[in-house]
Each structure stands twice: as C-alpha cells, then as structure tokens.
C-alpha cells in the first residue's frame, strides 16, 4: 500500500519506504537552534502571507510561535532542569491531528519538535483551504531550515486505512491522537510498541462562568470588550473547538443573573453582526431542530434568538448531556456560586473561561473538583489559546524522557 508524502513533497510512497524516509532525520537536543529558527521562520511566513492574514486562526498560531514566545518557552524549559534529571527527546512522535481544526497539526508538532523529536504528521486527504495554505508555508519553513530540524519532520496523507497507521505506530515512541472518542478508539486498533506511550485529546466540553456582581460593575465599554472576547472564544471554529464555550454560567442571585444575561447576549449578537459571522444555512436549520429537541429533552425555560445566536436557559443542570450542534448556540444556567457547579461537572469538561472571580474562589473550586473535571481555567477571550499545559498534561515534559542522573560516590544503603 502507498501513502502520499506531502513533506517533503514526494508524491506516493510505499509503506515499506517510510522507515528510510524517517531515518533521513535524526532527533536533536532539546531546544536546538535549528528547531527554534524553523518555528520563528514559520511565524514570519504566516504573518507576511497576504492570504494567510485573512485567517484569524492562522494569525493566532503565528503569534503563538513567534520568536519571543519560543524563547520564553525555552526559558520555561530551562526552569525544569534539576541536577539529578536530564531531559532528552523521546525519539519519534506520530501526530494524528484533527482534520477540522486546521492549525492543530502545527501546535502538536511544535512542542514535540522543540523537545528535539522526529515527527510524522498524518493529514487527511480532505483538507480545508487554510490547512493547505498552512501546509505550504510549513513546507517552505522546513525546506529552508537547518539540520536536524529540516529533515526530522514528515507529513503524510492517507484516509482512514489502518495499514499506514499501524506502520507508523510501530515506528513511534509517542503517539498523539487529537479527535473525537471514535477516532481515538479506531486508532487504538493499531497497537503501540511496548515502550511507546500515547497522548490522547478526545472529545471535550467547555463552558464560561461569570460572577454576576463583577459583571454588573463593568462600564459600558468594558462590557462591549468582554462580549467581543467571548465572541472570539465561541465563534472561531464555529463553536466546535474542544475549548469553545457552549454553556454559560451566571453566578449570583437570580434577578441579577437574569439582568446580566439580558445585558450580555445582545452585545454578543451585535459582535456577530459587526464581525459578519455567517453560518451556512444548513447549520442554522440544524440549530433550530436542536433547539426544539432540547426544549423537549431538557429543563429549558426560555429560548432567545438573534441571527446566528441562540440562547437556551436551563432551570437546572440535572440531566445535562453536553450534546451540542455548534454554530452559536448557548445553554445558560444560574448558580449562586461557582462551587455549586462542581457536582454537575464530568471528566469530559475541559476549559472554564471565567470572568470576575477571585483567585481564591477559583483555586478552592479546583481543589473541590480534585481532578474529577476541568483541566484549564482561563480568562474570557483565551479559550482557544493553546499552551504547553493541555488536557491535564505538561506537553513540554510529555515529549521528553527524563533521565535520572546520580554521579555521587556509592553510599551505604539506608
């Protein structure tokens, strides 16, 4: 069987040839200059490309991998050092990014490449225009990069066949699966080598919480800005990103919560209009069918609708199943305080974007959950901002082996 080799662009290659392609590259030391330059170069290429500039998610990526940021990451990495531990790359990392978040393959690659690993990225044959654009810029950046970064990344393309996944899995030290629960299950049919490990980023659900009292203290202008940040969180990726907020929680007394919501969502609707967000007609219809079913299946007591924005108010979170159509539909609920949310949360719940809470309140909330749910709490506006800490992992560490080192003279056992 053959797969298409996209980077380096060599067309169809046999599965048996993949190991030799992989062996043209070699792992580098962590934060090798060639990898740092390749990242910074890609960032510049995106920012300078007329077409790429039209995609906000590509600009966000460019911003995140810019030179200053990579150096900041390098500094964070150096803080991880301790005398008895040496961090080295794991070897070869096999990335299976989600097709539907165009930029994800670069985020996944970046931390692994900085850690010094060789990388194989699988892309689907059906790619969006922005993915192809990013792929071109990525290829240009690698082509001009120094070794070992230049030859240590392969991008392959195939459908949902098991054979290439099995072949590449057998060659890897780490496998990274981004995608839904079904994707994870189907890729797991390919068994990992005994020493290899796997990182999975399955279906997640995310929400936003507002402390009502804090919201009501905001000025007109601040409310506008907050709505705009919330808009970005929710509407980029059509509200289908795993960290896109889908449920909104108003923490405070009921009349104030009602007032805050009545003030906030019209502002979000205005952002939708101002920024010209338009959903395909078919998705609008799906949302309407979804809303009607939700009214019958859940304790929904009201539905407010604006073009491309639907808000369904829940009496309670009991039985809330986290099924969601995306495309600008929000459930909302009123809680007296954030701690009340804990009992309704599940492992699937990933990001809580928050506004107006004290540090103490949120820390106490995390302790209360004790790892049962929520991997990330960030301010409104940063829901989609990728980072080294993701889904409960520190990716800088995950992509490294930790070599224990002790060169002191032998001591008698304690």
């Amino acid at each position, binding site marked *: 069987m053959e797969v298409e080799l996209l980077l380096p662009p060599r067309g169809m290659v046999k599965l048996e040839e993949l190991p030799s392609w992989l062996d043209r590259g070699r792992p580098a030391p962590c934060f090798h200059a060639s990898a740092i330059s390749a990242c910074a170069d890609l960032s510049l290429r995106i920012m300078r490309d007329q077409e790429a500039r039209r995609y906000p998610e590509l600009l966000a990526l460019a911003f995140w991998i810019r030179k200053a940021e990579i150096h900041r990451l390098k500094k964070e990495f150096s803080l991880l050092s301790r005398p008895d531990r040496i961090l080295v790359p794991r070897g070869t990392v096999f990335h299976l990014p*989600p*097709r*539907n*978040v*165009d930029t*994800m393959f670069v985020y996944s690659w970046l931390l692994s490449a900085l850690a010094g690993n060789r990388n194989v990225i699988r892309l*689907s044959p*059906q790619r*969006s225009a922005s993915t192809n654009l990013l792929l071109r810029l990525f290829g240009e950046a690698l082509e001009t990069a120094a070794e070992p970064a230049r030859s240590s990344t392969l991008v392959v393309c195939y*459908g*949902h066949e098991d054979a290439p996944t099995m072949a590449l899995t057998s060659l890897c030290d780490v496998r990274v699966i*981004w*995608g*839904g*629960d*079904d*994707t994870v299950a*189907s890729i797991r049919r390919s068994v990992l080598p005994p020493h290899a490990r796997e990182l999975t*980023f399955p*279906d*997640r659900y995310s929400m936003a919480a507002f402390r009502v009292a804090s919201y009501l203290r905001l000025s007109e202008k601040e409310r506008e800005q907050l709505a705009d940040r919330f808009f970005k969180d929710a509407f980029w*990726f*059509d*509200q*289908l*990103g*795993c960290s*896109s907020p889908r449920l909104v929680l108003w923490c405070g007394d009921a009349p104030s919560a009602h007032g805050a919501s009545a003030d906030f969502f019209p502002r979000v609707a205005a952002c939708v209009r101002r920024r010209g967000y*338009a*959903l*395909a*007609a*078919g*998705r*609008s*219809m*799906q949302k*309407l*069918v979804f*809303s*009607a*079913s939700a*009214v*019958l299946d859940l304790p*929904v*007591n*009201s*539905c407010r*609708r604006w*073009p*491309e924005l639907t808000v369904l108010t829940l009496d309670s979170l009991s039985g809330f199943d986290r099924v969601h159509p*995306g495309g600008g539909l929000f459930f909302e609920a009123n809680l007296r305080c954030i701690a009340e949310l804990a009992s309704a949360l599940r492992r699937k719940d990933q990001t809580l974007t928050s506004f107006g809470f004290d540090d103490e309140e949120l820390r106490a909330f995390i302790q209360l959950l004790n790892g049962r749910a929520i991997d990330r709490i960030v301010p409104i506006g940063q829901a989609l901002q990728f980072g080294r800490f993701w889904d409960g992992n520190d990716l800088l560490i995950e992509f490294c082996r930790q070599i224990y080192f002790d060169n002191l003279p032998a001591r008698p056992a304690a």
Partner: protein
Amino acid sequence: MTVDELLQKAQYSIPQSEKETALLAELRSLDRYHRERCADYARVASILFPGHDDPASPADLPYLPVGLFKKRVLSSVPPSEIFRVLRSSGTSGQSPSQVVLDLETAQLQTRALSRIMTHVLGPRRLPMILVEQADLVKDRRTFNARTAGLLGMMNFGRNHLYALDSELNPRTSELKEFLKEHGKRPFLIFGFTFLVWTRFYRQLASVGLDLSNGILVHSGGWKNLQDQSVTASDFRAAFRGTTGLTRIYNFYGMVEQVGSIFLEGEDGYFYPPNFADVIVRDPHTLEEVPHGQTGVIEVVSVLPRSYPGQCLLTEDLGAVYAVDSPACGRMGKAFSVLGRIPHAELRGCSDVIAAQVN
C-alpha cells in the same frame, strides 16, 4: 371559509389576501387545538415562539422544523385513534420522520389529493402507468412515503401497469402492449422524478414510444442524485422531443405535512392549493423574505388534525415568484423549489469527521 369550503371551492381560485384571512382563522384554531392536545407542541411553541399567541398573519404562527419529526413522534390523538403511521423514506443513516394519522386526517389527505389531481386529470379514472416495481407494494407493512404516495396516486388510475421489473429495468413489451390498448386516449403516468428520468426516460429514449396522450405526474426531486439532476425545462424538452409527452406536472410535498401537495402549473412554478400555502424565510433571521428572494420554505396546511403539522419549516430552498398572477390561470403564490439546503462542512475538534467517514 371552513376547511370544507376550502376543499370544495375550485382549487387555485382564491386571491391571496382572501386566502390568507381564511387560513389564518383556521391556523389559529389549529394552533390552540394542538397546544391543548400535544404537550410537546405546546412546549416548543411557547418556548421557541414566545409572544406568538396572537398571530396577525400565517407567518406569525409558531412552526416546527421538519427535522423534529425524525427525533420525536408528535401526536394530538390518543394511541387508540392512530389509524396509520407514515414514515419518510429517509436518507441512509438518518432515522425516518414519523407522522401519526387518525382516520379523519387520513381522509382529509385523500380528499385533498383528489381535489388537486382532478383539477388536472378530470373527474374520471385514467389508464395508468406506474414507474415503479410491481413488488414495491406487496409488503404493506413497510409503509413508507414512497409506498404511501404510490397508493394514493393509484386511486386516480385504472388498468395499472408497473413499468419496471424487479431490477428497475423497463418492461418494454408490456409498455408497448399498454400503449397499443390505451395510448390513443388520455392516460396517466406516475412516478418519482429520479426513477422517471433514470429508469424510464433514459432507458426508453431509443425505443420510440408514443406518449403524446399521456399526463405525467412526478414528484420527489432528485434526492441523492443531485449530480445527475436535470432542469425542469430540460426534463420537459427531453420528453417532448422523444415521446411527444407534453403534459407534465411535477409536484412538491412531504410526508410530514398532510395537505401540502403543490402541483406544478403550466408555467413550471408550483402552486399551493386552497388549503395550504408556502412562506419563504431567511435561514438566519427566520423572518419572511420579500417575494423573489430565496430562502427556506415553510409549508402551511390546515389539514393536520392528528398531529401538530400545520406549520412546518422544511429543509428546502425556494422562492415565491408571483402572487395572484393570472398568467397560468391560478391565484395565490407561484413558487419554485431550488433543492435541499446544502450540507455544510463542520469544523472543530469533535468527532464529526469520523462520523461522516464511517
């Protein structure tokens, strides 16, 4: 005007404003009727359409998205009164719509179809060619929309001939036989659009049948054959050119709404009968769009009694072209159907893609 009067009065004869007044009164009482008898409808209507309890025009009434019938069985009658459950054929992987009929609603449906068909066929039954397999209706337990439509139409014909064999190939010699016997006087041909085109017209184009006395009624659109679809005028021209068939009537309708049977006029537009109507809405604002503008079609009918199907938002795109235009001698709205709302690409990191592939 009562429902009876709307049915009895000559079809397509009521000016739009008069018709809307009559429909509004009837729809308002149907809305109340179903709110009282179907708790699910009452809940959706009151929550999705707050403040719509005193509508001033048919467009102000609550409507259900047709997709809801794939998820729920909505009924306004006790189970003992259910006479028949209609199921849509449904594309693969989707659950079919289910629509509950009691005897009264089923009879209204039959009367409605008869009022419309006799308008073009005249009062007498005609010899009839069914562009279907003979074995389609043998199993009456699988009563899907295709079967229901076929059985409904069979009432307007006699000496029925199934034009296709079990492999969906035309039964050419039987057809020739039929035409020898009945081809000199008006006869009826009925079938689903894509079958009529792919299995009947295309296969028979070279055989040289004379269908000039035929009246073809077809419906159902192109479904999964969008890539093979032809325009209405190509369709007409092809039949006229090779078979002499000129009287062709497409009709638009759906299993989810009893009474919405929209027959094509001679001008190629669809016309609602007296007891039904269409409203075209913007897919984003859901407001009614001005005539001439494309939007999502809402179908309205005063016939559904056993389930709350009087106002349904379809998943079809269309536009109203004229109102009370005497060009083809019909009053009311002239509209076109422009196909399904295209299925949109999804983004995000959930499993939508795997679901599409598997």
